[in-house]
């Protein structure tokens, strides 16, 4: 029992943490190596900080989507879906040009977790993409994954612990200003979102969506954001307002450890 294979990798301007339980260690490490290489590839393709990335060239109109790596069209498709479901509050465009930055990290962390879960004998995987976590299976028989939600007002502390408690897959994604300031843009104005929120944590089966919904709800603000999150199936959330109010969806308690 006990420890599995763990790894932390600096990529996409943040750090991805991995925890894989079960399986033969050599096979797990080999898969981990592939997964990490893929994350760096994703970064190369999708980075808006690299002028020569496929997405940068796409944004400048130099490269059509069809000639980008296949993941680009796939991710843009997911982003379009997120924009639709979020009623426009999640957007994969910035100043009118394609910018899937907001979805890439969650999507790639979820993909990494699923690849690792395919390794023979693996019973549990948890991948943390810079603060957004995808967990699959369980770390030990009879013990669920436990994910702390960081307290934005008290560094090092947690405001709650979410447990997978029987769910085979669970993602916990948080959007907020605690680490990088006001970086979430209101798609309607193109300016930093005017919001009464400090942080939004979304709990859902898939990190790809949890990440998008956290971003969208944050931009939307507490009241409208909570109402919208409540309407989404299999989605729970915890919202912290700037004046210390805690709001959450009705079903969140199921996941509070």
């Amino acid at each position, binding site marked *: 029992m*006990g*420890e599995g294979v*763990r*790894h*932390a990798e*600096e990529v996409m*301007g*943040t*750090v991805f*943490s991995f*925890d894989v339980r079960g399986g033969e260690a050599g096979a797990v490490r080999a898969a981990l190596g592939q997964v990490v290489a893929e994350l760096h590839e994703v970064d190369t393709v999708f980075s808006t900080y690299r002028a020569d990335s496929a997405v940068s060239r796409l944004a400048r109109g130099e490269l059509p989507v069809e000639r980008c790596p296949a993941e680009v069209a796939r991710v843009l498709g997911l982003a379009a879906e997120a924009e639709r479901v979020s009623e426009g509050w999640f957007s994969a465009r910035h100043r009118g040009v394609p910018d899937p930055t907001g979805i890439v*990290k969650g999507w790639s962390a979820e993909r990494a977790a699923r690849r690792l879960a395919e390794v023979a004998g693996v019973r549990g995987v*948890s991948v*943390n993409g*810079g*603060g*957004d*976590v995808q*967990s699959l299976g369980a*770390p030990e028989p009879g*013990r669920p*994954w*436990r*994910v*702390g*939600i*960081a307290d*934005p*007002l*008290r*560094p*090092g*502390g*947690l*405001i*709650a*612990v*979410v447990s997978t408690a029987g769910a085979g897959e669970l993602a*916990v*994604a*948080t*959007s*907020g*200003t*605690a*680490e*990088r300031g006001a970086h979430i843009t209101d798609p309607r104005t193109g300016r930093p979102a005017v919001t009464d929120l400090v*942080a939004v*944590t979304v709990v859902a089966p898939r990190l790809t969506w949890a990440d998008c919904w956290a971003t969208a709800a944050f931009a939307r603000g507490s009241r409208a954001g909570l109402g919208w999150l409540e309407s989404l199936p299999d989605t729970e959330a*915890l919202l*912290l307002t700037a004046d*210390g*109010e*805690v709001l*959450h969806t009705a079903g969140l308690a199921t996941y*509070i*450890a």
Partner: protein
Amino acid sequence: MHALRKNRPLRRVVLASATTVSAVVLLLSLKPHSSPGLALGASAQGSGGGASAPAASGGSPTPGSSAASGSSSASGGAPAAGGAAKTVTGETAQTRWGPVQVRVTVTGGRLTEVTAIQYPTENPRDQEINSYALPQLRREALAAQSARIDMVSGATYTSTGYQQSLQSALDQVHG
């Protein structure tokens, strides 16, 4: 203590199971810059119970450093692997009530012992607080550690921000 809690209405809502000893938090407000290795114990516990975080963050373990107050024993600063116990003594922190120093033992990645080896004893009130708070601190720390957080979700950190994060502490202790 309750006056303090009032500043944090959110925690009342969420932390049903956490009994926090704010007095201990104040008493043991140690240096914020703790090394990840030790912060691990610290933050991980703080996570669950809230009060105990500062205990483990008791200053940098600074193995090999010549700092008079920091020392590391047992497995000599190497990350605690397997079941090997590692005891780290934090640097002495000067709080408004006097010096505080904490020693923690990590066994197999779990906090197994918390001892305050230096704490304010200037006046009877100190002693009164200590007789209550120090055992409570230890209990809180161990209980929270047993909460066993695997990962931490929060606003996206930068690579630099990661170094200060609770997630980094978790990675270090288990890695």
